[in-house]
C-alpha cells in the first residue's frame, strides 16, 4: 500500500463516524476501527522489508518551487511509531466504544480521534520537514479537540486551551528551527538532511536551530519546564489520555528528537540541553507522582517522568543509549496505555479516581487487578517484565556517562528517579487494590465486560511476552528502529542477567528505597503538603491573562459592531496602501494614445455619470433608486457593447434584469424610504472617504489604460489556439468552456451554492420564529393593484415564452462561435420563466413547473463534472475538450464539441440558481398573505366576478 494512502486513510476515516453514528454506536466503532486496521495492515505489509533494513518511499511533487513535497518514507523508526499509533489506536477505538456513555456524542469523538491519528501518522511518515510541520500543527489542533471533548467541563476546556497554547507555541518555534535547518542543507527533504551532519553541526546557525527545534520537542513531550500542561490535559476522557499520553502526542517530541538524532546529537550543546532537561523531568515527575491522589494525575506525572527518562537517554548522544531509548519507547507505550485504560475502568466502575477513596478492589475486580499488577510492576522495573529490561539498560548507560566531568551525579539522580518510580507504581497497586474491601465506594465496583478489558489485557500480555522473550518479540523491531535512529546497523542484544554490575545494585537500591517511601507515605505526604510549591497553572494563567486582556481590548475597540466603520477603515487602508505604492515608485511612460470619443459615447457617459451622481442625493427614496440603478446597469452594458465586448453586454443586460427583479421583490418587504439621518459631519466624512476611493480607482485605471502591458500577455495564445485547439471562433466562450474550464466549473459550483444558500435562508426564516410571525401578520404598506395579473401581460408573456426559450437555445448553440453561450442563454431562459411568475402569479407558475430548481443545479454541476471526467476516459487531463464536424441531411455543416456538453451544465446551473433565488423570495410574499391564484388571470370575461372569486380561493 502506498505510504501516501496510509497517511491519508485516517483522514478519510475521520469523515465516516459522523455519518455512521446514525447506524448505531457499534457500527460506528467498527467502521472507524476497520479504517485504522486497514492502515495498520498496509504498514504491516511493508514490515518485513523494513525489518530487513530497506526504506520504503512514496514521492509526490506538490509545490516543488517551495521545496514542499508530499514525500513519505518508512524506515525502522517510522515502523515502530506507525505500529504504536495504529495498533494502540485500534485498541483505543475498541475501548472507547465501551467507555463512552450514551450521552457522549460518539461520532464526534471518533472523528476527532481519526483526525489526530492521521496527523500523527503523517508526522512519523513525512520525508519533508515542511510537510512534517503541517502534520505537527495538526496534532496540536486535533489534540485540542480531543482534550476538550467534554465541553461542559471547565477543566476540560482550560486543559485543552493550555495544551494548545504550550504545544502550539513550541510548534511555532520549531517551524523556525526547521526552516533554518532546511536553509543550511539546501533541501527540505529529511532523507537529504539526515546525511548532512557535518554541514549542520559546523554551521553557526546550529545552536539557534537546535534550541528552536528542542523547544518544539520539549513542549510536545512535556519536558521541564513545559511539563505542566500534561497533567491538566487529564480532564480529557480516559481513552484520549491513554492514547495521547502513552503512544502518540507526547511521543511526537521524542520521535522528532530520535529522527533528528543523527544530525543534531553528539555535540556538548545537545548533551547538556537534552540530557539535563530529561534528567530533571524524570526526577521531578517521579517525585510529584508519588504524592498525587488522583489515579490519572499519578499516571500523568509518571508519564512525564518516563518521557524525561527517554529524553535523557537520547540526550546522552551515544549509540547504545539511543538504542535503549527506542526500547523504552516501546515498553512505555505498552504498560502505560494498559494502566491508563485500567484507571479508566476503575473510574468507570467505582465512579471515583481518588486513591484515598479506593482500596481493596483486588477481590471485587480481579481481572483489572491482574492487568494493573503486570503493567505497574513493569513500570516499577521488576523482573522479568519489559520495564525491568529497559530500566536496567538505562541505569547501565547512566553509570557510564559523566555529567560535567562528574561521574556519580547521573547515576545518583537516575536512581532517585527510579526509586520514586517504584514508589508510585507500588502505591498504585497497594492503595487501590490491596487492603480491606471498603463499604463506602461511590458505586459498587466490579469487573467490566470483556470489551472494555480486552484492550488493556492484550497490552499486559505484550508486557509479559516482551519481558520474557525480548529478542523474540521485540529484538528485530528494536534493531531496525535503532539502526534508523543512529544511522548505521545497531547491535541489539537484550537479556535479563548482566551479572553483578553497578546497574543491578542501583536497581535493588531503587526497589528497596521505593518500598521504604511507600511505607513512609503518610508521613512524607504530610511534609509534602506543608511545603509551599509553585502552582504551574496559576503562573501560566498569570502570564496569559494580560495578553488575553490586551487582545480583548483591541478586538472590542476594532470590532464594535458598527459595520460602516469596518468598511471605512478597510477603504482608507486600501487607498493608503495604493497611494504608498504609487508614490514610492515610478509608473513608466505613457505609451498609448487616447481613443477618440464619438458623440454617442459622450451621450452614454453623460447618462451614466448623471445617474450615478444622482444616487448620492436620491438614495433615500428606494424605488427611484432602483430605476436609476437600472439605467446605470444599462449604460454599463451598452458600454461593453461599444467597447468590443458583445458577450459582456449580453450578460450584463440579462443580469441587470434579474437583479432589478430581485431587488424589487425584496423592496416589497423593506421600508420604502430611508429613515437614516445623516449628520453633516458624518456625511462629510463619508464623502471624503468615498471621494478618495473613487479618485484612486479612476486614476489607477487611467494610468493602466494609457500604458501597454509590461509583461507579454497570454491573450495572444488564446486568440491563436481558440479555433485550432478549441474548435470555436468566439474566443471568450472558448476561454470559458475550454482554456479556463476548470475556473468556470468552480464558478458554477459557487453560483449553485449561492442559490441553495438563498433557499436555505428562506426556509429557515419561514419555518417559524419572529420573521415568520411578522410575515403572517403582514399589512401591505402600499396599495395593491386591483388587477394583479393583467390580461395583456399574461397573454404577452405566454406568447413570448416559446420565443424567448428559442432565443435561449439559439444563443446557447451559437455561443461557441458567436456571442452567446451557456451563461447568457441561462440568464435569458431564467428571465423568460420569471416573466411567467410576474405575469401569471407564483402559484399558477409553480403548479406548472415540471423540473425542480435544486435538481437543475445538481444536474448542471454533475453534467459539467461528467464532461470533465469524460476526458479521463480518453486518457487526457480533466476537462480536455474534443470537437468534430458532422453533416446531417437538410441542415448545413454542424459542429459538435464536448465543450457544448460542459456549457449545458453551465446553462442548467445558471437557470437553476437564478430561479431558485427569485422563487425563494416570492415565497415570502405567499407567506405574507398573497393569495395563490389558480386561474391564469383574475378577470375572466366569460364569467361573473363572484363565481371567479369563489373558485380562486
Amino acid at each position: 500500500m502506498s505510504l501516501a494512502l496510509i497517511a491519508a486513510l485516517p483522514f478519510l476515516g475521520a469523515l465516516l463516524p459522523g455519518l455512521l453514528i446514525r447506524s448505531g454506536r457499534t457500527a460506528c466503532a467498527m467502521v472507524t476501527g476497520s479504517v485504522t486496521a486497514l492502515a495498520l495492515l498496509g504498514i504491516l505489509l511493508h514490515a518485513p522489508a523494513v525489518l530487513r533494513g530497506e526504506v520504503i518511499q512514496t514521492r509526490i511533487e506538490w509545490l516543488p518551487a517551495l521545496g514542499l513535497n508530499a514525500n513519505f518514507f518508512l524506515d525502522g523508526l517510522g515502523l515502530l511509531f506507525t505500529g504504536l499509533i495504529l495498533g494502540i489506536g485500534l485498541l483505543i477505538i475498541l475501548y472507547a466504544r465501551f467507555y463512552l456513555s450514551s450521552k457522549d456524542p460518539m461520532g464526534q469523538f471518533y472523528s476527532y480521534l481519526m483526525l489526530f491519528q492521521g496527523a500523527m501518522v503523517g508526522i512519523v511518515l513525512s520525508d519533508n520537514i515542511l510537510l512534517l510541520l503541517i502534520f505537527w500543527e495538526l496534532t496540536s489542533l486535533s489534540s485540542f479537540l480531543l482534550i476538550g471533548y467534554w465541553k461542559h467541563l471547565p477543566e476540560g476546556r482550560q486543559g485543552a486551551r493550555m495544551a494548545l497554547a504550550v504545544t502550539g507555541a513550541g510548534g511555532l518555534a520549531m517551524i523556525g528551527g526547521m526552516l533554518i535547518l532546511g536553509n543550511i542543507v539546501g533541501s527540505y527533504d529529511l532523507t537529504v538532511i539526515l546525511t548532512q551532519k557535518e554541514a549542520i553541526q559546523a554551521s553557526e546557525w546550529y545552536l539557534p536551530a537546535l534550541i528552536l527545534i528542542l523547544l518544539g520537542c520539549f513542549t510536545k513531550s512535556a519536558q521541564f519546564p513545559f511539563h505542566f500542561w500534561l497533567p491538566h490535559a487529564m480532564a480529557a476522557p480516559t481513552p484520549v489520555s491513554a492514547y495521547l499520553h502513552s503512544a502518540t502526542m507526547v511521543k511526537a517530541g521524542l520521535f522528532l528528537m530520535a529522527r533528528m538524532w543523527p544530525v543534531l546529537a553528539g555535540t556538548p550543546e545537545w548533551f547538556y540541553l537534552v540530557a539535563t532537561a530529561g534528567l530533571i523531568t524524570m526526577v521531578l515527575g517521579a517525585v510529584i507522582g508519588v504524592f498525587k491522589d488522583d489515579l490519572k494525575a499519578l499516571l500523568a506525572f509518571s508519564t512525564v517522568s518516563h518521557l524525561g527518562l527517554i529524553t535523557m537517554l537520547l540526550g546522552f548522544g551515544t549509540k547504545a543509549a539511543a538504542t535503549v531509548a527506542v526500547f523504552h519507547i516501546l515498553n512505555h507505550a505498552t504498560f502505560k496505555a494498559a494502566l491508563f485504560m485500567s484507571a479508566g475502568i476503575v473510574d468507570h466502575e467505582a465512579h471515583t479516581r481518588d486513591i484515598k477513596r479506593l482500596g481493596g478492589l483486588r477481590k471485587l475486580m480481579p481481572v483489572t487487578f491482574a492487568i494493573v499488577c503486570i503493567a505497574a510492576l513493569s513500570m516499577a522495573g521488576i523482573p522479568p517484565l519489559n520495564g525491568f529490561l529497559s530500566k536496567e539498560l538505562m541505569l547501565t548507560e547512566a553509570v557510564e556517562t559523566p555529567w560535567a566531568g562528574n561521574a556519580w551525579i547521573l547515576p545518583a539522580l537516575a536512581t532517585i528517579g527510579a526509586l520514586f518510580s517504584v514508589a508510585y507504581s507500588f502505591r498504585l497497586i497497594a492503595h487501590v487494590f490491596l487492603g480491606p474491601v471498603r463499604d463506602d465506594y461511590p458505586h459498587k465496583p466490579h469487573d467490566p465486560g470483556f470489551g472494555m478489558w480486552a484492550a488493556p489485557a492484550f497490552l499486559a500480555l505484550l508486557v509479559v511476552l516482551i519481558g520474557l522473550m525480548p529478542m523474540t518479540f521485540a529484538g528485530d523491531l528494536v534493531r531496525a528502529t535503532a539502526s534508523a535512529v543512529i544511522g548505521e546497523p545497531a547491535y541489539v542484544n537484550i537479556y535479563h542477567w548482566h551479572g553483578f554490575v553497578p546497574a543491578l545494585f542501583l536497581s535493588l537500591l531503587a526497589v528497596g528505597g521505593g518500598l521504604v517511601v511507600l511505607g513512609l507515605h503518610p508521613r512524607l505526604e504530610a511534609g509534602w503538603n506543608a511545603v509551599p510549591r509553585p502552582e504551574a497553572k496559576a503562573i501560566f494563567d498569570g502570564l496569559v491573562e494580560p495578553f488575553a486582556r490586551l487582545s480583548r481590548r483591541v478586538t472590542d475597540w476594532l470590532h464594535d459592531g458598527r459595520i460602516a466603520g469596518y468598511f471605512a477603515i478597510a477603504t482608507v487602508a486600501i487607498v493608503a496602501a495604493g497611494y504608498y505604492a504609487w508614490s514610492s515608485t515610478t509608473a513608466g511612460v505613457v505609451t498609448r494614445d487616447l481613443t477618440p470619443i464619438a458623440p454617442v459615447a459622450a451621450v452614454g457617459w453623460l447618462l451614466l455619470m448623471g445617474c450615478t451622481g444622482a444616487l448620492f442625493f436620491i438614495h433615500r427614496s428606494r424605488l427611484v433608486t432602483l430605476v436609476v440603478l437600472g439605467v446605470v446597469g444599462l449604460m454599463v452594458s451598452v458600454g461593453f457593447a461599444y467597447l468590443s465586448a458583445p458577450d459582456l453586454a449580453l450578460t450584463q443586460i440579462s443580469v441587470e434584469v434579474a437583479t432589478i427583479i430581485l431587488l424589487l421583490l425584496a423592496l416589497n418587504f423593506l421600508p420604502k424610504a430611508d429613515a437614516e439621518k445623516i449628520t453633516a459631519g458624518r456625511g462629510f466624512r463619508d464623502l471624503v472617504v468615498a471621494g478618495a476611493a473613487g479618485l484612486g480607482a479612476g486614476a489607477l485605471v487611467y494610468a493602466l489604460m494609457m500604458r501597454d502591458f509590461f509583461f507579454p500577455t497570454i491573450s495572444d495564445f488564446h486568440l491563436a489556439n481558440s479555433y485550432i485547439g478549441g474548435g470555436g471562433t468566439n474566443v471568450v466562450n472558448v476561454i470559458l468552456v475550454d482554456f479556463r474550464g476548470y475556473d468556470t466549473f468552480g464558478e458554477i459550483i459557487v453560483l449553485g451554492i449561492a442559490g441553495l444558500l438563498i433557499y436555505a435562508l428562506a426556509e429557515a426564516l419561514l419555518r417559524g420564529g419572529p420573521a415568520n410571525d411578522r410575515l403572517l401578520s403582514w399589512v401591505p404598506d402600499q396599495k395593491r393593484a386591483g388587477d394583479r395579473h393583467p390580461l395583456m401581460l399574461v397573454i404577452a408573456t405566454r406568447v413570448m415564452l416559446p420565443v424567448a426559450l428559442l432565443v435561449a437555445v439559439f444563443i446557447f448553440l451559437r455561443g461557441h462561435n458567436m456571442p452567446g453561450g451557456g451563461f447568457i442563454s441561462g440568464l435569458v431562459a431564467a428571465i423568460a420563466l420569471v416573466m411567467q411568475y410576474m405575469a401569471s402569479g407564483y402559484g399558477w407558475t409553480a403548479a406548472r413547473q415540471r423540473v425542480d430548481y435544486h435538481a437543475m443545479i445538481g444536474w448542471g454541476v454533475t453534467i459539467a463534472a461528467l464532461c470533465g471526467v469524460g476526458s479521463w476516459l480518453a486518457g487526457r487531463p480533466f476537462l480536455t475538450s474534443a470537437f468534430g464536424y458532422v453533416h446531417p441531411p437538410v441542415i448545413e455543416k454542424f459542429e459538435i464539441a464536448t465543450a457544448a456538453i460542459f456549457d449545458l451544465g453551465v446553462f442548467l446551473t445558471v437557470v437553476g440558481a437564478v430561479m431558485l433565488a427569485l422563487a425563494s423570495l416570492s415565497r415570502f410574499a405567499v407567506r405574507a398573505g398573497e393569495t395563490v391564484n389558480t386561474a391564469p388571470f383574475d378577470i375572466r370575461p366569460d364569467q361573473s366576478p363572484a363565481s371567479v372569486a369563489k373558485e380562486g380561493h
Partner: protein
Amino acid sequence: MELLVASAIGLMTACGIYLMLRQRSFPVIVGLAMITYAVNVFLFASGRLTLGLPPILRDDAAGYTDPLPQALVLTAIVISFGMTAVIVMMALGAFLDTGSDKMDLDDDRAEDPEARK
C-alpha cells in the same frame, strides 16, 4: 475615451463606497451593486480599450480585442448576481427577524422589547 471610462469608474466607486457607508441595509446593497459595476468595468478596462474589434475570429478581421479580461468579467458578473441575491436575502431576513433594517449592532435595540419581537 479612456478619460470617460476612468471617470465613470471613479464616480461609480465613490458612489458605491458612499452608499455602503450608510446605516440602512438597502443603500448598502445598492452600493455593493455600484461597486460591482465599477470593479467589473475596471477589470475589463485592464485589457485596454478597443473599438470595433470584437474577439470573434474572422478571416477579414483587422485585429482583436483582449479576450481574457472579458472571459473573467463575464463569470464575475454572474457570480456577483449570486452574491447580491444572498445579501439581499440576508438583509431581508434580518429586517423581518428584528423589525429594523439598521446595519449596526445597536445596543439600544437589544434593550428595546418592541424591536426584538
